[in-house]
């Protein structure tokens, strides 16, 4: 599916309000009758310092000029740019700034909704999409830390072993469905005509509580996280 | 991963120890972590539990642990070792450090 098709699925005719420049989408559109601000990556692009600034500028514009308008984050990015100059100029700080802008928006009453539309991998997902109130993924999206081949290359654990283990450990599997089992996305959406309605409902339902650990426990994909968090909270309260 | 348990006779630890537990070392290449916990039920015995990723050196481990049990009063403790390829000299050093920490005055 082309980017234009995808945007049309979500935003209909209002998708014309979204500009794509350097594979970064920014602008305003409507989901049903609801005005939304859109930031995102397309075509699996790598996120660098400039891309982060492009998105943060859009968030700031929204906070300044469109009080309370929900911010929809679309994610189709292979990762952060592995580049020495980017690192030298402080890539993590650019990402931290983007996240801080989103926090300012959240505190100003903007809802934050993410849809992983394509690749949503590693740092590229952490640096904005995973910060949302509610996170969703298309069934065709490839979501996760990294494919098992890449994992194998770094950990030196053979691919066959990782693949075998991933049958019982969704954390090691790569894709939207296993990511949902971990609580990392709330729901996986089929790419069809109902996307706009689903997004609209998701915006309406969004609240800022982070429920991912509870969800991961409930769905069985991340059995320890919630309990450990709760134990720490209980012990620290003594 | 090879795992084994073994108990040795040892003189009783000076009682009571000043802490409920003590940890020495880290799990890292050529190193290990040692957790020592009092076990008053068996004051003249020390029980070891070892996990190591390098199989085939059980005899070597047990000889080192036996020597440590004989040289130091560690009866009435259980000691758990998570190894990542530590040589015996480091094993004995961490055991000593953990024991010192368990019995030293609270800082």
């Amino acid at each position, binding site marked *: 599916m082309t980017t234009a098709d995808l945007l049309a699925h979500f935003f209909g005719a209002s998708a014309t309000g979204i500009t794509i420049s350097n594979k970064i989408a920014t602008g305003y559109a409507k989901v049903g009758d609801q005005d939304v601000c859109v930031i995102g990556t397309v075509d699996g692009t790598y996120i660098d310092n400039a891309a982060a600034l492009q998105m943060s500028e859009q968030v700031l514009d929204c906070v300044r000029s469109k009080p309370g308008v929900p911010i929809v984050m679309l994610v189709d990015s292979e990762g952060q740019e592995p*580049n020495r100059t980017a*690192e*030298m100029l402080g890539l993590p700080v650019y990402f931290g700034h983007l996240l*801080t802008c989103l926090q300012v928006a959240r*505190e100003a009453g903007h809802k934050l909704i993410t849809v992983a539309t394509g690749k949503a991998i590693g740092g590229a997902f952490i640096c904005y999409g995973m910060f949302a109130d509610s996170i969703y993924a298309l069934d065709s999206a490839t979501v996760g830390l990294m494919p098992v081949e890449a994992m194998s290359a*770094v950990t030196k654990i053979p691919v066959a072993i990782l693949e075998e283990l991933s049958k019982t450990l969704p954390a090691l599997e790569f894709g939207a469905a296993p990511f949902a089992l971990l609580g*990392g996305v709330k729901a996986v959406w089929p790419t069809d005509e109902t996307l706009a309605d689903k997004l609209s409902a998701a915006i309406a339902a969004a609240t800022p509580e982070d429920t991912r650990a509870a969800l991961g426990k409930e769905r069985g994909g991340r059995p320890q996280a919630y309990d450990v968090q709760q134990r720490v*909270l209980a012990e*620290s309260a003594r | 991963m090879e795992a084994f348990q073994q108990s040795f006779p040892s003189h009783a630890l000076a009682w009571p120890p000043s802490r409920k537990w003590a940890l020495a070392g880290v799990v890292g290449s050529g190193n290990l972590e040692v957790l020592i916990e009092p076990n008053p039920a068996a004051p003249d015995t020390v029980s070891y539990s070892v996990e190591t990723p390098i199989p085939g050196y059980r005899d070597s481990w047990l000889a080192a642990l036996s020597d440590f049990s004989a040289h130091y009063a560690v009866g009435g403790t259980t000691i758990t070792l*998570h190894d990542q390829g530590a040589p015996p000299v480091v094993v004995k050093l961490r055991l000593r450090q953990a024991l010192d920490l368990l019995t030293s005055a609270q800082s």
Partner: protein
Amino acid sequence: MSLTPYHELKARERIAVIADAGSFREILPPPERVMSTYLPKLGIPVSFDDGLAIGHATIGGKPVYLAAQVGQFVGGSVGEVHSAKLVGLLKSAARDKIPCVFLIESGGVRLHEGSSGEIGIAEAIRAVFSCRAAGATTLAVIGSDIGAYGGMGILSSCCDFRLMTEHGRLGISGPIVIEKWMGKQAFDSANRALVWKTSGGKTRYVLGDADLLVNDSADSVRAGIISFLSKSAKPDLAMVEARQASLEARLEKFGQISDPDEIWKTCGITDIAAASLAEAEDFAKSFHPQNS
């Protein structure tokens, strides 16, 4: 009091020299054996604390929550348990409105635990901002050779403040990954001088990414931490707008430079060799960082 080089210390030794003597009360201490369930399945040794010691302490008499990562254990990496301990601690800090200090030494997400650590870091980042919203100071202390990379580099950049030594490195992609991606000509990961000039404490301080640069001694780090405990940087629109402008200016000014020495020179450092050798605090005094 200790002049021991901070970067040489292990996590628990750091806690011992940073916290007021005897004040540290560990949460989920080693005997609780809250450990990774993934690593044994991969034949990798586990650790009693999963590479993270957390607890309550006082530093300079002020109550804090304190976390220290064990860089030796799977590179200080963040898996399911490790991240859950971080999140629990941060939520405790937000609830109790007391500062949270991280002694960071981590390459980022623990690959062996796949996406669970990734989601865990994302949760921890949300929790960092809960602290900031509550006015509970979050401070990243980066003074180890492993530094703060990957998701931990991003998390550090979300904290109110970053304190670094020249041994510390702050980044996302490590040099080996970049070398693989760009080629050895563009970035030789064995060229440690370039690696440190790219991501090390001095360059991060020059560019304003580290709020404070201190000497590599436990005492200096402790004193530095104390200096932040009564401050916070609660995010608001004015702050992020100013930051947006400064980050844009940085990209404009330095975007075409590839040699980090050029950045130092542009920032007014004339004798690069002497500045490279200088003690961190002397270095920091010698010029005004490019800041936001």
